């Protein structure tokens, strides 16, 4: 379930402040063998938001929406063409070193572990590069080893770890210097259910216990509702929604999906509308505010030949499409 902690943001310090940020990339697209056409792609268009100390926000959107670009801007790797980015009141590009001392970044498709070395060596490397005191290093290592079950991984080579193990080790490495701001780009990418659960619980714990500000990207609606108390939806470079999950549901409906594995044609399921059949699985959509799960299961039990049932949230693309649809209707 989503975390619905209501917080008084006024009391908090601003950790992230993005104001009117526009970032675009110019491309030369081939229109014929010898002719190229200039094309401008907007990764972000006039995006503004702030994050206060201790907030756990999800930065969500479909693939190509501008999530990773935002993270690169926040970590000072890229500069915006327009607008300002401030982390702890500093420009992360110009004040890279002080910002990085207080920030932890993890890109889901990248690893900060030294590939040809044991996991332990990467931690010792970080201790030196980040100039972490011996006592702090030992204390944080002990905490992380326990919380993320790193004991067995400590002496394994990074190249030998499974995806889930590698993500755990990367997460621990990222947290070694006790960052006040954590930026996670698709941390659950490719993880199995158990590993995903561990990751989410851990992030909630450090947010709750240590007031670490967390901004996490994902394009998986289920993960986001589990993790964050604030959702920033981004689509085609623009902020489409900024609020909590309850607000989002009020605007779009609590739309969920159910997948039935059944032989033959898709059966008619009362309380849900049929969407599509993919690989023998029939996909239905239902509004959880109108029909309860037990009621829906009661309807499913009446159907013949149902072999399996999967529940989930609607894909983020559909949530965004619905948002736009509602706005159009309102206009």
């Amino acid at each position, binding site marked *: 379930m989503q975390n619905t902690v209501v917080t008084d943001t006024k009391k908090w310090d601003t950790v992230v402040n993005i104001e009117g940020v526009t970032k675009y*990339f*110019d*491309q*030369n697209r081939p229109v014929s063998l010898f002719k190229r056409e200039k094309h401008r*792609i907007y*990764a972000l268009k006039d995006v503004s938001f702030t994050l206060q100390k201790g907030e756990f926000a999800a930065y969500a959107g479909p693939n*190509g929406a501008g999530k*990773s*670009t935002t993270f*690169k801007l926040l*970590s*000072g*790797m*890229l*500069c915006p*063409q327009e607008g300002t980015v401030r982390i702890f009141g500093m420009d992360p*590009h110009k004040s*890279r*070193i*002080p910002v*990085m*001392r207080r920030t932890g*970044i993890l*890109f889901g*498709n*990248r690893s*900060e572990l*030294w590939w*040809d*070395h*044991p996991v332990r*060596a990467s931690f*010792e*490397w970080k201790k*030196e*590069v*980040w*100039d972490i005191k011996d006592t702090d290093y030992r204390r944080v290592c002990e905490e992380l080893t326990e919380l993320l079950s790193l004991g067995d991984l400590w002496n394994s*080579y990074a190249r030998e770890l499974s995806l889930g193990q590698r993500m755990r080790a990367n997460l621990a490495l990222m947290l070694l210097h006790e960052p006040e701001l954590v930026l996670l780009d698709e941390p659950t990418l490719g993880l199995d259910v158990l590993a995903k659960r561990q990751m989410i619980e851990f992030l909630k714990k450090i947010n709750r216990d240590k007031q670490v500000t967390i901004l996490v990207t994902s394009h998986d609606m289920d993960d986001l509702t589990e993790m964050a108390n604030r959702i920033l939806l981004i689509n085609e470079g623009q902020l489409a929604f900024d609020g909590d999950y309850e607000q989002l549901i009020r605007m779009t409906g609590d739309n969920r999906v159910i997948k039935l594995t059944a032989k033959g044609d898709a059966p008619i399921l009362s309380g849900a509308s049929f969407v599509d059949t993919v690989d023998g699985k029939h996909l239905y959509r239902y509004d959880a505010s109108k029909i309860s799960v037990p009621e829906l299961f009661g309807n499913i039990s009446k159907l013949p030949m149902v072999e399996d049932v999967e529940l989930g949230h609607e894909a983020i693309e559909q949530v965004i499409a619905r948002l736009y649809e509602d706005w159009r209707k309102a206009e």
Partner: protein
Amino acid sequence: MADKIKGLFRLWKLYARMDLHWLLQDKATVLLVVITETLSNLSGMAGVLLLAVRFGGVGGLTADEILFMLGFFELADGLGWMLFGNYNVIHISRRIGRGQVDHMLIQPRPLWMQLLTEGFMPFSGCHGLIIGIALTAVSVARLDMTLSPVWFLLLLYYLVIHIILRLSQSFLYGSAAFYKPVACEEISSMILDMNSQLGRFPLFGLPGWLGALLHTVLPIGLLAYFPALALLKDLGKPTELAFPFVVAGLFLTAALICFKKGLSHYAKYSCNRYKEMGHRC
């Protein structure tokens, strides 16, 4: 400043320890790598040496003097490799082209400090240096040279010039990878290979314009030939001493400017997917 110097030494120590760990993890493989690298280094200079032995010298130098020049090249090349060879620091275009500069940008250390230390491999990368020392020692003995402290200072000076020139060229041309990452990923390797192949030849007897070109625009003559002449034949005049310093200084300045400009370009325009010839995702 003292903190920065202390930081440099701490990082060198760290990377030396990591290098030793890597060396000890699989001794058989590492031994194979070291033997292969040694053979490769020796075969790289075999052609010039065999020619010199067969014809009693080439390019205005005797066979023993050629051996000294090749020894100097190995010494300087080995030292450069030991200091900057690891993790593609010397092959900087690979790091840029593969999008690995991002990893550096999230470290709370200045980039120059990272680049000066990350490549340090005193254990697994010392074979070239050892070969260089051995060859230089043999040639010095055969030439019956008298070595003074000034001579050793001069040797150190030319070693530094050699390393600056090679590193500067790698960074100068390698900065192109900020603009065309995939297309230019291997540009540093190509420049360094060309330096290795041509830098071992004596340039005596070439037309004046070509000699000048090979000591300035494409400064392969300053990698071993010019230093060998200076160390063998006492080219200690101020102008002869200043010339390689000026060329190396110009290359270093150009490399720093281009790298900085490239990095700014990356911050302003670069992105994995959108750039033509962009990073491999």
